[in-house]
C-alpha cells in the first residue's frame, strides 16, 4: 500500500483528530507552545494559500487581516464575550475588511493589486500603532486569558484544545469547500480569467468570496495566535509577517492544502530549532523564499506527492461513480492502454 493511500481513507480525519487530542500527553510546556503556534499558522497559512495559491490574486494584505483578527478578538474578549464568539467576530471583521480591500482587485491586476494591498497593510499597521485608546498603541497589549465555558485556559496545554478544535473544524470546512464549485471557480480564475468568465463564472463575485474567506481564515488564525502568544503588538503584523506567510505557502507548496500544513510545521518549528541564529531570521526567510521559488516551485508537498507519500489533490472527485458511461469508456480505454494512468500523469489542479 502506498503511504498516500492512508491519507485518502474515509476514517483518516477521525484518526487525525484523535492524533491531535493525544499530542498533549507527550509534550512539555514549551513544546506544546510551539505546537499551538503551528496550528495557528495552519489557519493563517490557509488564508494566504486561498488567495494566492488557489485564486491566484497577488495580495499583500493578509498580515493586516491577521492583525485585525488578533486585535478584534482580544478587545472584544475583554468585554466578557465568550471566546468562540470573540474569535468569530475577529474573523468576520477581517473578512469584511477583506471584502473592501478586494473591491479594487476587481479592477486591478497583478502588480497594481500588490501595490494597493501593500499600501493597505502599511495603513493597518499605522492605525494599530496610533489608535491609542483602543489598541494601546505601539507598546502592544496583553491578550486576556481565555475562558471557555467558565473554565479558564491558563496553560498552553489547555489552550491547545481550544486551538486544535477550532483549527480542525476550519480545515475540514476548507477542504470541503475547495472540493466544491468554489474551489473550482477559484482555480479557474487563477488559470485564466477570460476562460473562467466564458464558462459562466461570476468573476467579481468569486474574487470577493476569495478575499472574504482569506480574510476570515487569517482573522481567526490571528485571534488564535493572540491567544497562543498572549501578547499583541502592531509591529508583529508588518511586512515581515507577510513574508512568513509567503514563505509558508511557498515552502509548503503553492495551491495545496497539504502544503499549508507541511509549511506551517516546517516554518514554525525552524526558528525554534535555530534559536541561536535569531539575527539571521529575516535572511533565512528571504533565502527560503527565493530557493523554493527558483528550485522547488511546487514546494515540499509537491516533493512528497511525487514520492507518493502524500496523495495528489484532485479537483473533481467521484466522476467514476457518478457517470457510468464515462466509467465504461475509461475501462475500455484502459484495455487498449489509451487513457491508462491518467491520474498518474498528474491532472492535478
Amino acid at each position, binding site marked *: 500500500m502506498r503511504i498516500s493511500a492512508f491519507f485518502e481513507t474515509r476514517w483518516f480525519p477521525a484518526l487525525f483528530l484523535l492524533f491531535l487530542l493525544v499530542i498533549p500527553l507527550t509534550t512539555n510546556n514549551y513544546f506544546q507552545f510551539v505546537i499551538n503556534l503551528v496550528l495557528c499558522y495552519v489557519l493563517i497559512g490557509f488564508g494566504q494559500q486561498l488567495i494566492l495559491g488557489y485564486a*491566484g490574486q497577488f495580495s499583500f494584505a493578509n498580515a493586516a487581516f491577521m492583525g485585525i483578527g488578533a486585535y478584534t478578538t482580544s478587545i472584544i474578549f475583554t468585554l466578557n464575550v465568550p471566546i468562540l464568539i470573540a474569535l468569530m467576530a475577529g474573523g468576520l471583521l477581517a473578512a469584511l475588511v477583506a471584502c473592501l480591500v478586494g473591491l479594487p482587485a476587481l479592477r486591478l491586476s*497583478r502588480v497594481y493589486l500588490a501595490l494597493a494591498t501593500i499600501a493597505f497593510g502599511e495603513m493597518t499597521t499605522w492605525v494599530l500603532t496610533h489608535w491609542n485608546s483602543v489598541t494601546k498603541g505601539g507598546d502592544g497589549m496583553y491578550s486576556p486569558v481565555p475562558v471557555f465555558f467558565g473554565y479558564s485556559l491558563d496553560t498552553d496545554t489547555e489552550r491547545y484544545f481550544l486551538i486544535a478544535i477550532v483549527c480542525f473544524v476550519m480545515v475540514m470546512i476548507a477542504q470541503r469547500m475547495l472540493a466544491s464549485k468554489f474551489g473550482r471557480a477559484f482555480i479557474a480564475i487563477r488559470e485564466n480569467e477570460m476562460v473562467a468568465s466564458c464558462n459562466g463564472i461570476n468573476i467579481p463575485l468569486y474574487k470577493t468570496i476569495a478575499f472574504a474567506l482569506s480574510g476570515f481564515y487569517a482573522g481567526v488564525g490571528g485571534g488564535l495566535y493572540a491567544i497562543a502568544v498572549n501578547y499583541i503588538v502592531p509591529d508583529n503584523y508588518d511586512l515581515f509577517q507577510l513574508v512568513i506567510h509567503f514563505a509558508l505557502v511557498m515552502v509548503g507548496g503553492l495551491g495545496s492544502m497539504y502544503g499549508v500544513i507541511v509549511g506551517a510545521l516546517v516554518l514554525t518549528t525552524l526558528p525554534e530549532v535555530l534559536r541561536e541564529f535569531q539575527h539571521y531570521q529575516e535572511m533565512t526567510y528571504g*533565502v527560503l523564499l527565493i530557493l523554493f521559488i527558483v528550485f522547488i516551485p511546487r514546494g515540499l508537498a509537491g516533493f512528497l506527492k511525487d514520492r507518493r507519500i502524500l496523495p495528489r489533490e484532485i479537483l473533481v472527485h467521484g466522476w467514476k461513480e457518478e457517470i457510468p458511461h464515462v466509467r465504461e469508456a475509461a475501462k475500455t480505454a484502459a484495455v487498449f492502454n489509451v487513457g491508462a494512468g491518467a491520474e498518474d500523469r498528474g491532472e492535478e489542479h
Partner: protein
Amino acid sequence: MEFFILLSAGLANGGYYALIALGLVLIFKAQDMVQFGHGEVFMIGAFTAYTVFAVVGWPYLVAFFAAVLAATVVGMIVERWLIRPIAHMPHMTLVMVTVGLSFLLKGAARIEWGKDIYTFPAVFKSGPIVIGEVVLMPQQLVLVAFTLTLSVVMYLMFKYTALGKQMRATSQNMTGAQLSGVNIGRVFSSTWAMSGAMGGAAGALSAPVLSLLFPDIGTFILLKGFAAAVLGGFGSVVGAVVGGFAVGVMEKFVGFYIATALEHISAFVIIMLVLIFWPKGLFGKKDVTRV
C-alpha cells in the same frame, strides 16, 4: 509664508522619491515587473556612503561614487544570477523573488548594523541659504538638481539612444526584439545597472537630508517610491519624476494642514486612492487586455 516653506521642504523630499520611482519604473519598463528589493538598493547606497564618509572619513564625492558603484554592482549581480535564470516565469514569481531578496539584503545589513539608528553628519559646512522666510539646505538643492538633470538624461536616453530604443522594444515584445537582433541579456543587465545606480545615488544624496539611517529604511523609502510611481502612472519616466515631487509636497501639506501623524501614511493613501479611482495615473497609458 509657510506655504513656501512647506513647498520647498516637500520638493526636497520629492527629489529622492522621484529617484526611487525612476529606478522602479526603469525595471518595470524593461521587464514588466516591480522590484520590491529596490528599497534595499537605496539602503545599500546610503550605508555605503555612510561608511565611506562618516566612518572612513573620505570626501563626500568619493562616498557618493562608492555608493553608486556598490548599488550598481548589486543590481547587476541580482539581475544576472537571480532574475535572468527565471525571467521566463510568471510575473508573480519574479515579484515574489524580489520580496525574498529584499528581506535577504535587509537581514544581511542587520548583521553589521543591527537595529540601531545611525546619524549621517552634515556634508556642507556652510549654513542654510535663506531667501525671505524660506530656508534651503545646500544638500537639498543638490538633490533636486541631480534628480532633474538625471530625469532629463533618462528621457533623452529612452527617446534617442540605441539602448533606450532597445529597452522599449524589449518591454513591448521580448521575442520580437530578440528576433530583430536585440541582445536582451545586455538590455536587462544595463537596465538593472542603471536602476541600481539611481537607487544608490538616491541613497547617497538623501542620507544627509534624512540624517537618520537604519537597516529598515528600505521598506519605508520603497513605499514612497511606489506612491510616486503609481501617481505618475507606472511606466512613465516623466510621470515618476512629477509623481515623486507631487508626493513629497502633498505629504508636507497633509502633515501641516491636517495632522502631523498623517504625514507618513499620506503616501499609502495616495497609492490606494489613485489605484482605485484612477489606475493609469498622471502619465500612464491605458492597460489593454488581449485575449
